């Protein structure tokens, strides 16, 4: 009876201790994040600082967690309960329910609600022919021009990754041995049968040698990184009138991509599962990389509905080359107008 008495005390004690410890860890993490936020408001750039948690992440079964989350959010919700669930989600993630195209009780599951379309006219497209528009709703994390050797994109101050690793050994952006890209650009190049595989090359070699008397302007390579919160509108639209020639799918991992993750996980955007679309617009090369995350592991392409992402992976990921598909209708690929819907992020 005695030992039984002891163990009945022991269990609640251990449980309480665990809950207290987890609570303390979470409080500490919230304090750290608040500190970071205050520094960002003062304009102080956060620096890259890998921590134990980030390395611990690589041992977690993130893909299984993501797929379970997808199963859970695909479950049908009773019609009477739907508005309450979606209003709770909207409150938690600051979603704008007024813009949803359908009445809330028409979305049968949270996953269906997540990829909701918006009412007509909710997102007017800037029609200026000289401008590039945002393909998604979100927050601008980084942008700029890719210069010099390696063409590196800054993940966060103190850590960068090569654009080639993000896009893959590109058929449109071939690299030289030194990790640079080579240019043979001329305004007159048109896609022909022979040149379809590698007809655009862009030079980042500097100093730029440019004949000032030539009529065509020199071209550079630019990038822009946009982060979508879970409550944002999650469909992806076309940033310009362009022809998509190649689609590349990297299985990769499914680390979270929130602000903390970009600050602590090395090579986040080139480790994670992603779908890269490559093609050409009026000014030359264009590529769009849609990068998944633990809670949003699926990337759906309306232009290729059969593409499956976030599949259970058997072998080790890094060795796997990306799975590539050339869109080849009559050699001009898939033609999209500025603002056309081309895909969506989804949960699980």
């Amino acid at each position, binding site marked *: 009876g005695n030992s039984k008495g002891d163990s009945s005390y022991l269990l609640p004690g251990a449980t309480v201790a665990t809950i207290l410890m987890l609570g303390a860890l979470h409080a500490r993490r919230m304090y750290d994040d608040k500190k970071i936020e205050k520094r*960002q408001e003062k304009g102080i750039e956060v620096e890259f600082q890998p921590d134990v948690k980030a390395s611990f992440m690589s041992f977690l079964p993130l893909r299984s967690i993501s797929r379970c989350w997808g199963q859970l959010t695909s479950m049908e919700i009773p019609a009477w309960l739907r508005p309450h669930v979606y209003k709770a989600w909207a409150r938690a993630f600051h979603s704008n329910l007024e813009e949803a195209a359908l009445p809330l009780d028409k979305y049968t599951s949270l996953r269906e609600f997540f990829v909701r379309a918006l009412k007509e006219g909710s*997102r*007017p497209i*800037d029609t*200026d022919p000289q*401008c*590039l*528009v*945002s*393909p*998604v*709703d*979100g*927050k*601008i*994390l*980084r*942008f*700029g021009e890719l210069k010099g050797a390696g063409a590196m994109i800054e993940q966060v101050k103190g850590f960068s990754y090569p*654009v080639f690793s*993000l*896009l893959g050994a590109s058929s449109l952006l071939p690299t030289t041995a030194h990790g640079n890209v080579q240019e043979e*650009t001329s305004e007159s190049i048109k896609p022909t049968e022979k040149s379809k595989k590698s007809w655009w090359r*862009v030079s980042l070699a500097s100093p730029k040698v*440019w004949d*000032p*008397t030539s*009529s065509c*302007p*020199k*071209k*550079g*390579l*630019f*990038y*822009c*990184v*946009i*982060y*979508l919160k879970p409550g944002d*509108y999650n469909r992806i*639209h076309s*940033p*310009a009138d362009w022809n998509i020639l190649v689609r590349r799918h990297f299985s990769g991992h499914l680390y979270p*991509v929130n602000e903390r993750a970009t600050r602590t996980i090395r090579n986040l*955007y080139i480790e994670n599962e992603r779908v890269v679309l490559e093609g050409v617009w009026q*000014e*030359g*090369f*264009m*590529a*769009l*990389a*849609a*990068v*998944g*995350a633990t809670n*949003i592991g699926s990337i759906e392409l309306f232009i290729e509905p059969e593409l499956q992402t976030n599949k259970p992976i058997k072998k080790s990921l890094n060795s796997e080359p990306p799975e590539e598909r050339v869109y080849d209708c009559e050699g001009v690929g898939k033609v999209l107008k500025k*603002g056309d819907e081309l895909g969506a*992020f989804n949960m699980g």
Partner: protein
Amino acid sequence: STVVLVFQAPISKLLHEGDSSQEFNFNVKCGDRIKVGEALGR
């Protein structure tokens, strides 16, 4: 989730008088909220 856009655009000004400069410029700042269809740059 995250979207990374990589694109070619002009980086130099046309020197002939009367020609407007063709240099691409972003019209956003880091930390800005942006929506589908709003101009990233011209």
